[in-house]
């Protein structure tokens, strides 16, 4: 299956003044997959999404979405893309019913059953005004509005933000439901690592405006290893190995999380002369946290300020 990726960028860059928000992004999202876009706050995820949708002019670089240049997205392309913003903003004065009516007139392929289904699932009254809805209800409404036109590509910017657990679960269920169609692609950014573990096929990780990882979930999991070295006395500082993500030093123990663990790295570690060295399993969530966090030796927040009794 050698068709064009639904999203493709080449050297996509955005500066705000002198500060790069997104730098040299090269990404290809194949059709039919679920790709999770991860990164800390301010790493450039929302900026990337806004550029992809033609809402923000890139400083340089190119991109295409569904085969169309992102700088000139025609209406036909927009009709096939569903977009969910993190704030779930809609017109406060409209009622739920009016929102549905408003949206449906824009899309020739509008599935009223889906809309009613989602609205019903979130228990939204058709006459309720948007400004009176809670955050979770608004998210449900936005979800219904996005799903009813049955878009080929869904772009979700931190969709779970601010949702209560029930609304959150409904959101994730909807995403799984959407994978029924093999030609439908989901591209979403999220901070919910559990969601990513459940739902994503692939992940792309932005670290301070630069793309540092883009692979399948499986590959990521296999690339991140945790190694525990035990020492009789105080452990030495972490060695400078390439691919070191984080190091934890506690009494008698040095725990390292690193990527691309191979024999060379193992040999380098053995030179520290640990009493014991073993690989430990690591959960995907811990792997994400280590990858996203600051490189180097990790200290806990407030640990320096703690007053010794």
């Amino acid at each position: 299956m050698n068709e064009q990726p639904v999203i493709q960028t080449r050297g996509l860059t955005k500066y705000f003044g002198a500060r790069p928000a997104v730098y040299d992004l090269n990404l290809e999202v194949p059709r039919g997959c679920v790709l999770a876009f991860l990164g800390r706050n301010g790493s450039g995820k929302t900026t990337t999404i806004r550029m992809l949708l033609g809402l923000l002019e890139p400083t340089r670089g190119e991109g295409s979405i569904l085969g169309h240049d992102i700088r000139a997205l025609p209406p036909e392309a927009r009709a096939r893309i569903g977009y969910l913003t993190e704030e779930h903003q809609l017109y406060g004065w409209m009622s739920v019913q009016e929102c549905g009516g408003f949206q449906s007139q824009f899309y020739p392929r509008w599935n009223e059953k889906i809309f009613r289904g989602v609205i019903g699932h979130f228990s939204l009254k058709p006459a309720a005004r948007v400004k009176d809805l809670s955050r979770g209800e608004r998210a449900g409404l936005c979800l219904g509005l996005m799903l009813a036109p049955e878009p080929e590509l869904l772009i979700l910017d931190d969709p779970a933000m601010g949702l209560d657990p029930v609304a959150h679960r409904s959101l994730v269920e909807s995403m799984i439901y959407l994978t029924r169609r093999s030609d439908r692609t989901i591209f979403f950014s999220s901070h919910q690592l559990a969601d990513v573990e459940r739902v994503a096929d692939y992940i792309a990780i932005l670290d301070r405006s630069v793309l540092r990882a883009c692979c399948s979930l499986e590959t990521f999991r296999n690339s991140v290893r945790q190694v525990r070295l035990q020492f009789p006395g105080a452990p030495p500082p972490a060695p400078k190995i390439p691919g070191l993500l984080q190091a934890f030093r506690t009494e008698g123990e040095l725990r390292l999380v690193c990527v691309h663990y191979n024999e060379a790295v193992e040999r380098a570690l053995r030179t520290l002369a640990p009493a014991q060295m073993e690989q430990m399993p690591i959960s995907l969530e811990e792997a994400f946290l280590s990858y996203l966090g600051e490189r180097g030796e990790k200290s806990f927040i407030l640990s320096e300020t703690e007053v010794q009794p």
Partner: protein
Amino acid sequence: MKILIRKELRENLKLAVLGFVVFTVLVVWSWRDYAVMMKDVLLGLRSLEGFRLQPVHSGLILAGTGWLCVIFGAVLGWMQIFNERHRDLWAFLVHRPVSRTQIFFGKVIAGLGIYIVAAGLPLVCFVVWAGIPGHVAAPFQWAMALQIAWLFLAGIAFYFAGMLTGLRQARWYASRTFGLGLAFMILLANAVPNWRFWQILVAMLIGIAILAAAVWGGFHSDGHYKGQPALGKLGLTASITVGAGVVAFIVFALLASLFPNLLFNNDRWTMYVMTKDGTIYKEIQGGRRPPEFVDLDGKPLIDAKTGRMIELEEFIRRACNTISIQMDREKASLRRRNPPIFFSFWQATPDTIWYYWNRYGRLVGYDIATRRCIGSLGPNGFANDLSGGGDRFNAPDSRTLQTATAIYQTDVQNRATRTLFTTEKDETILGATDVFLNGNDWDHTVVATKRYIRLLTPEGKVVWKTPNEQDYPDYGRVRVSFLEKPGQCALWFAPPYGPNKKAGWKLPTHVAWIDSEQGLFKSMDLPNLNPPWNQYPLRAKVLSLLIPPALWAGVYWDDRPEPPEMPWKLVLISLAPAAVVWVPLGLWLARRHNFDVRARLGWAVFHLLCGLPGFLAFLSVQEWPVRTLCSNCEKLRSIDREKCEHCGADFAPPEKNGTEIFAPLEITRA
């Protein structure tokens, strides 16, 4: 797009209703104002002032319409953008599967529709009310509503300017409001004195089109300059240039008020004046000093009581009354171009108001109680309708009316006209003026025909008659001074500007003394007093430095009878700062940021034509991308270009830190 229009209408309903209510209040207030005034007039409690007798021209309706259209238009336009101020809501709107142009039109059609109904409907009702006979005791022509129409149109300019203010993403927050400067100029267009209807209309429509193009472009690029189509960029640049010009003008005016010498004329100007005994003196004015009076030999006139130079007040007491007759009918016409005068108040009786109506050339009477037209008065007397046959009255004076061949007096109480004077044979009246020597008493009327100038009494008797400027053709204007002795006058024939200039400022001023017994008994030629007017005083040169050169083209747009002369020297002075300062600055900036050759040339021409406001617009409109050091050639390069401008290298890819995980993405579908 219909969906968008409906949504916009629904969204701005409250504002629409508010606007409609406010305009209705204005209209009702104006109507009531007129009704109360007419009631007072009927009861004899109030005297009449000419202009406000037609409520369509009242100060209230004009000022109210002006302010309300401007404010309502701007607020409406701004609100339509402000409604989607949240970034995600704007994203929702823009992500509709319709083109940006359709989103633009969706908003604009709804907005203008609201404006037309909320502002237009009450105003139209008001004008129609005034036009229905029996409502307003004054002449009515649909063209009288033009002033209101211009203000309504200016509101549309402010609508787009308000939208532009809301849309524009600019670093300097103040520059967002520059569009309002252009809207303000559009508003002023309706008040330019010399312009005709079509000139005003074209100027306003061009201005509105520029603002609309800027807003349309703003929808394409979400308010930035870069991503717009070319037409939008043009519109935006033009709008901001004009706005910057307005701001620059205000700043300069404020600064200049600190240096009054720059603005005020220090030139001195000499005039001939005459005292009641017929002696001619020269009055020297100007230079911010009190006027001085000298006799024809140059000796100062000394006041016998004080021993010093006579003071202005004392001289005025000694000076004679002088009236002026324009003998060029075109200039004397009441049909001024802008705003046109349609009628003027003539007289009022306790139950009727009489007007001179320019359109029919007759006096028209309106009954105060019924407010209906009761008929008209012409040279042939009273008629029940407005035509009545016969000649037109060409122009009203204070007590008399003229036709081409006769002067009439009217008696509105009895609805009759009386001939005061008729010309002989084939003469036509060139001009006539009623003279009041002491306040309100009508003393004489002076009539000038091609061959003679006559002085008449109110009964029509000729006091004296003298030939009209036989030796001084084309002078066009005669002034008559009334001396102490009754019936004795001095006639002044002064050369007009154009022919005087052609003759090298050598044409004399001719004075003739005349009275009823002797006829013409003395005459004298006086030399031209002032040297050729210095067309380019320092003041003009300083101001020219500040004018953007493109404005000089306006000299030709102003359509005056004489073909205007382009003051090339002043134009060059305007071009100088543009060429020396703004063009090089602009070129330097363009080179620094590596504009292509076409862009550099275009902006250079623009700076040459538009001067300082153009440069300010250039700074405001362009998004100046940051420059960083090229990793290859160590020179500064723009961050928005793929290849370095100097060495063609790409940007370095981001540094790897060893923790990258990349693997090809392949689907393994279930």
